[in-house]
């Protein structure tokens, strides 16, 4: 494996035009290489993620964008056969150093998945509170908290009378907002979103995007999307991934209006991908 990784190791080159200063970054990845069995997914990613901003990861299928955000909260290693090298610094601390407990990392860096996955045997209320249950925390004022996070996820008005109903009884878009409420309830500082709208219709998608706007500033959001318009609408910074590498990273408006790299330009103009 190591030999393979050396071959694929790419000497750092200029792709980061974001201008994010080290002190502005909440997460910095340092040459992150990831693989599944013998398939290399990431070939050495070094990116700063700006605190309180929305960062979009775009790129064609199989470019490693989902793998990348899963390395940020140690969810990559959950998949059998997954391996990783490199450092991911969260608030200056490497989350892959041996003394770090992945559970603690995941409490600080929450995640929303591609397919809405509320727990089917739990009610809406229990879904929002499931993080406490899973972490073994006895939480006071649960009702207030449930209401607060459902409001945060812009779902409260739709479900306030049905809190006892199963989470799976909601529509797809509502389920996804429930999953966002559930992720926010563990009070992370970073929220990772892995194509959160890919299973949703345009109206539900618009509501999630509104929600992302309302969370900006209080949370750092990293969103993977295959939808370039979505990236342009929600993100402050955008990274274009291709074949396990970052091709270009910049402020979203600049990246879309004035890409520095030919590949980026081809992709965002729809010439491939």
């Amino acid at each position, binding site marked *: 494996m190591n030999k393979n990784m050396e071959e694929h190791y790419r000497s750092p080159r200029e792709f980061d035009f974001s201008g994010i200063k080290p002190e502005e970054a909440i997460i910095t990845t340092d040459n992150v290489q990831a693989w599944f069995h013998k398939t290399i997914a990431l070939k050495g990613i070094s990116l700063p993620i700006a605190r309180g901003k929305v960062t979009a990861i775009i790129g064609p299928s199989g470019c490693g964008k989902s793998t990348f955000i899963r390395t940020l909260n140690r969810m990559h290693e959950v998949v*059998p056969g997954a391996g990783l090298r490199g450092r991911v610094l969260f608030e200056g601390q490497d989350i892959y150093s041996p003394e770090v407990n992945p559970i603690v990392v995941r*409490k600080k860096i929450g995640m929303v998945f591609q397919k809405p*996955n509320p727990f089917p045997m739990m009610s809406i209320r229990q879904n929002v509170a499931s993080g406490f249950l899973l*972490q073994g925390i006895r939480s006071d004022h649960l009702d207030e908290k449930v209401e607060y996070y459902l409001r945060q996820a812009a779902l409260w008005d739709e479900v306030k009378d049905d809190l006892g109903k199963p989470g799976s009884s909601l529509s797809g878009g509502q389920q996804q907002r429930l999953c966002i409420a559930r992720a926010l309830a563990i009070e992370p500082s970073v929220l990772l979103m892995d194509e959160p709208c890919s299973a949703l219709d345009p109206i539900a998608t618009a509501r999630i995007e509104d929600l992302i706007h309302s969370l900006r500033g209080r949370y750092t959001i990293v969103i993977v999307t295959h939808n370039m318009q979505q990236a342009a609408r929600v993100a402050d910074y955008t990274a274009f991934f291709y074949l396990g590498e970052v091709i270009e990273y910049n402020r979203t408006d600049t990246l879309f209006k004035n890409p520095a790299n030919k590949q980026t330009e081809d992709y965002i103009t729809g010439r491939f991908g």
Partner: protein
Amino acid sequence: MRNPAGKREPGSQADLRLPRSFVERGIGSVLLVCAAVSVVVTIGIILTLLKETIGFFQRVSFKEFFFDTQWTPLFSNKHFGIWPLIAGTALTSFFAMLTAIPLGLMSAVYLSEYAPERIRKALKPSLEVLAGIPTVVYGYFALTFVTPLLQKVIPGLAGFNAISPGIVMGIMITPIVASLSEDAIYSVPLSLREAALALGGSRLRTTFRVVIPTAFSGIVASFILGMSRAIGETMIVTIAAGQQPRFTLDPRVPIETMTAYIVQVSLGDTPHGTIEYSTIFAVGMLLFLITLVFNLIAHFMKKRFLRGVL
């Protein structure tokens, strides 16, 4: 073989005729007959049971059968109260489930949540080998090994008792419970485990707070199917539990289960048509109904589980 559609020449008219061979046409009926055999035999068994049971209840009242507490059809002073046999079956089944539920569930959790894929693939079939051991072997294992062992720990344990065959029966049922629970646990979508882990759940809490509750009705279905195996199991209890119908909940003394009673009468020289002879059909009918109810419950639990997950 039919040609794949893509290979057809453009413009040519599709030839949709394909002569069906005799075998092709006949095979359906042959297979239907094979499948029908088991259905017909089952219906035949039920009809026989029903006929003999009706014969039995023409001579013995329901009231005596269900409210008497003595079962002595083979003695001159005949009593036909079924409760001693039910108590015997309940006792042995209880100890069987006391063994099989924790062992089976924990094996299932290990196999599905903790075992590396290679171990899972090797261990699951070998667990099922346990279910292939002839029950007579289990019976003598209970009588000659487990009972003497238990007698050292449990005071007043008779040579024939309900605990030892119950535990051994539980060991026999463990693979069924483990295998069916494992199926249920394994079919819980990966996305739910990931959701739980991403919320900061440890592996243990993820398993017990999310995976097992999600698979719950499937797991309970496996318990119930195991239970119905325990109730119907014959050889182990015949060998190791004694053959003394006794209306008791003391597991240390010899008892007799419904199944063991049927064996006892079948092995003896009870003549056809006598009341003693027809008792085994009444007991058999009750046994059939009990396991049927359990199997139906298991079936519906399983369906509910699948509906809940998918």
